[in-house]
């Protein structure tokens, strides 16, 4: 059983580029999350990775995604943020420059500073963010899928649709999304059972 608590999900997130693409590759997934009250922020470095860096999206047709993402940013639905040079001068951060990408570092530092959650789908980036002093809440898009299913904001067929949309961009998280969905459904089943069966009702607060 996963240690992820699908009954909870922090709605405010600073996303790294990989998590943002995973979220945005499926318009219905993104829309479901927004309808459930989630909001997203990206740092200026991540914006550069998504739109300016020459290798971004090479080999796949990301133009439609970029256009949609740009519209969301222009409309202020996804906000832009900056970290400061002082934020980078943390010894823990300097020591990680050989291990983490600059997009991950920028995103986790802004998440820490702004008290938003750090949204990433990279296990090692999540691990480091968790180890930071004053670590932000760290969560992933599979966690979001599970939480949306638990909230009844996403159905099983909706999850299958997300997986298909992601796959069309060569992104594969199907095993993780399906597992999150199954585990969230198990939690829903457990919630509906009588209390005498040992379910902790206090855990089901969102």
């Amino acid at each position, binding site marked *: 059983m996963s240690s992820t608590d699908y009954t909870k999900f922090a709605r405010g997130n600073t996303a790294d580029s990989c998590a943002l693409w995973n979220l945005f590759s499926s318009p219905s997934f993104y829309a479901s999350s927004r309808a459930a009250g989630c909001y997203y922020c990206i740092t200026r*470095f991540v914006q*550069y990775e998504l739109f300016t860096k020459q*290798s971004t*999206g090479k080999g796949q047709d990301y133009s439609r995604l970029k256009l949609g993402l740009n519209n969301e940013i222009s409309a202020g639905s996804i906000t832009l943020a900056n970290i*400061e040079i002082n934020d980078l001068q943390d010894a823990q951060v*300097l020591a990680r420059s050989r291990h983490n*990408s600059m997009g991950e570092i920028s995103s986790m530092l802004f998440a820490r500073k702004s008290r938003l959650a750090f949204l990433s789908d990279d296990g*090692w980036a999540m691990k480091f963010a968790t180890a930071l002093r004053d670590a932000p809440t760290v969560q992933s898009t599979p966690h979001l899928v599970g939480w949306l299913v638990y909230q009844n904001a996403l159905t099983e067929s909706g999850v299958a649709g997300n997986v298909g949309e992601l796959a069309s961009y060569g992104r594969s998280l199907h095993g993780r999304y399906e597992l999150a969905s199954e585990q969230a459904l198990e939690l829903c089943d457990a919630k509906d059972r009588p209390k005498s069966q040992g379910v902790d009702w206090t855990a089901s607060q969102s």
Partner: protein
Amino acid sequence: MGFTLEVAGNRTGIAVNALNQFETGAIEPNGDELLILADVYLKDFTIYLSSNSPDTLDRSKELYRLAGEATGESISNEDREAIQEFEFLCEAEHDMEEMLHRAKRYSFHFFTPKQLHKDQGEEVARQLRGILDLPDDEVSPNIYTLFRQLGVHLFRRPLRSRSMSGLFIMHPVAGRCLLINYEEDVYRQRFSVAHEMAHAIFDSALGIHVSPKTRRGVDLVELRADTFASHFLIPTPILRELSKRRAWTSEDVVEYAQKLRVSGQALAYALLKRNFISSERYEEVRQARIPRDNKLDPELPVDSSPIHALLAQKILDKGLSTYYVNLAFDAYEQGHISRGKLKSNLLLSEAEVMELGTLVRRKI
């Protein structure tokens, strides 16, 4: 990289006016802008934060100056970028080797002799073949792998300049780094890597050395490197043995150049300099050419499956090595680098990393 402000503006997405103000010191970049600049210029962002870090920006300028001097032409932006990427790959390779505790397979004492003499090339080539367990009568199968096992960082990347065969950098962190011009003939590249290895052995005190394709005047440093390369790739005992049975016609030169995986010209020159043929015979055979399609790249194994051959070719075409790609995936799988860092260390997009991961059967 020596971009104009307009090019830097396009590459970074930062307004030209702001870039100009960063340059003059009128304003400071914020943290994200500093990271963007580090990414575009392929530098570790920590060097911009520390006053004790090696001055890599000055080293790059010196390198371009020396390259221009050696080749007699100014270095194009494309070649500056290729050299910058090469330095980045060497540093990343060094970092990942440290993280994974990768040890050199062979131990070789690199030294700088007090006096320069071209015969040192012959002597050290013989010593190195001994250390690498290469018998005198055996061709070194994959010279690139062997040199990497000595601890040098070695990449083959296309350079637009036809006047530059390769270069050597004594990097303050990564150590000995060799860049070979991938645009050149396959056997010429093989000679170039042995030549650059000689600079790594003898000339580390120079810090940077750029090897032009054609030279003006006599340069003993280059002559020693050529002597090393020739004796390393074409050991005298092989020539002595073959000369007992061969008259060294053009056909002989082509046949044995192919077996030794050197150009006909390099073999003919070695035969002349080591007194196995006369100067008249040399004039007859020095134009002997191996057809281009018959030449074998040591990093493209002939006995591999079509899929492996395609993979090896793809890796080479991206300016990487199979060793480097495997090292990066090992570092990722063992939790030393994140997925984002894997992508940036491979200098590839997300989609390209996914494709490469599938080809090398690595899970990402």
